[in-house]
């Protein structure tokens, strides 16, 4: 980026007016990729509580001593925010997988003419799977 063009004042004028499927697929793919990397760290943090738990570490949870691992997970799952974020995580992961498959096909030179349609298909499929997952994730949260 150090050598990017300088159009100065001109860059202030509006852009992005024309919709292009491939470009949005790229943006979403980058975005979901970064979200998944971020999630990976929290995932590791939660799972690593299994190490002290294996040595018999306990914590107070709902009035009784539970091992740290179970306590952490159950208390996290008790938070409404975490439940909602899980739905988002699923959506992000599903889109990243489907669009990744699409990019794989593009790299293999398969269906290049249908690249926009496959992007829409992965969006719709992501939406459907996310909606279908809502009862499972949100059940009993409210």
């Amino acid at each position, binding site marked *: 980026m150090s050598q*990017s063009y300088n159009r100065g004042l001109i860059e202030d*004028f509006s852009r992005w007016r024309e919709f*292009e499927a491939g470009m949005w697929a790229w943006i979403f793919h980058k975005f979901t990729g970064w979200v998944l990397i971020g999630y990976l760290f929290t995932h590791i943090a939660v799972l690593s509580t299994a190490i002290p738990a294996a040595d018999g570490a306990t914590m107070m949870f709902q009035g009784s001593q539970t091992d740290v691992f179970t306590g952490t997970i159950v208390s996290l799952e008790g938070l409404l925010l975490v439940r909602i974020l899980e739905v988002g995580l699923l959506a992000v992961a599903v889109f990243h997988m489907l669009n990744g498959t699409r*990019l794989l096909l593009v790299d293999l030179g398969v269906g290049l003419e249908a690249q926009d349609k496959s992007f829409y298909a992965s969006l719709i499929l992501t939406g459907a799977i996310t909606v279908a997952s809502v009862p499972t994730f949100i059940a009993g949260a409210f």
Partner: protein
Amino acid sequence: MSTQIPKQTDESSDTDAEAEAPSKGDERRDEKRRRAAEDRARRQAEEAEKAAADEETVELKVFRYDPEIEGKQEPRFDTFHVPFTKGMTVLDALMYSRDTYDSSLTFRHSCRQAVCGSDAMFVNGGQKLACKTQISDLEEPIRVEPLPHAEVRKDLVVDLEHFYDQMEAVEPYFQTNEYPDGELEEQRQTRENREKIKMSTRCIWCSACMSSCNIAAGDNEYLGPAAINKAYRFAMDEREGEDMKQKRLEIIEQEHGVWRCQTQFSCTEVCPKDIPLTEHIQELKREAVKNNLKFW
């Protein structure tokens, strides 16, 4: 001679008499003439107004910028109302605006038939060739801007020097070490091979693809779709021979070559000549892999 002179004096005496004492009749005639002229002018104005009302006009918002004139250094948009005619293109409208309203409006154009590639512009948020973009296909007001991701020289003219450098970097000309025997012998290409490179030969160097490419915008060294397509055109040409193909692949598989492409398909979408640019870049990636990975 003798007959002419008295006549002249006669005439002059006549006009003199008129000048001295214009008759009532003459005055009335003058008045009448003046009123007739006024009437005619009024009628013409009315007709012009009616014609203007009947006439369909298109609203054009054109980017203006001139670094050399103090009052124009701040980019602005000028609005032009251009009478619409059937089949009018964006270029036609721009030329009308320039010829009718503002002769300082600057843009490149030459052939007006999508062959020279001079008039790639950013029309309503997309890279278009102005001469093949129909006004009737666009939403009003039509916004005309210079190509993004290039420096603006003046109004709609951008600096294409970098684009040409990238094009030259892939050596966009036929080279071969294998010459036919006879001096006058032709270097024939098979029909299949011609068919394979046919689309890639259609490039007119308009730089619409380069301007639409997000990667090229962020990475100045990236060859860009047009240059890679040019490389494809010659790398896939069987007449160039194996060692020349090797040389061409070495150019395009560098760090800022084909591997920078992220398959956004922006270039393919904007190409006015419908060249499947992304497909060509992907094919060259595969060629490069095949070239470098050998398991046998």
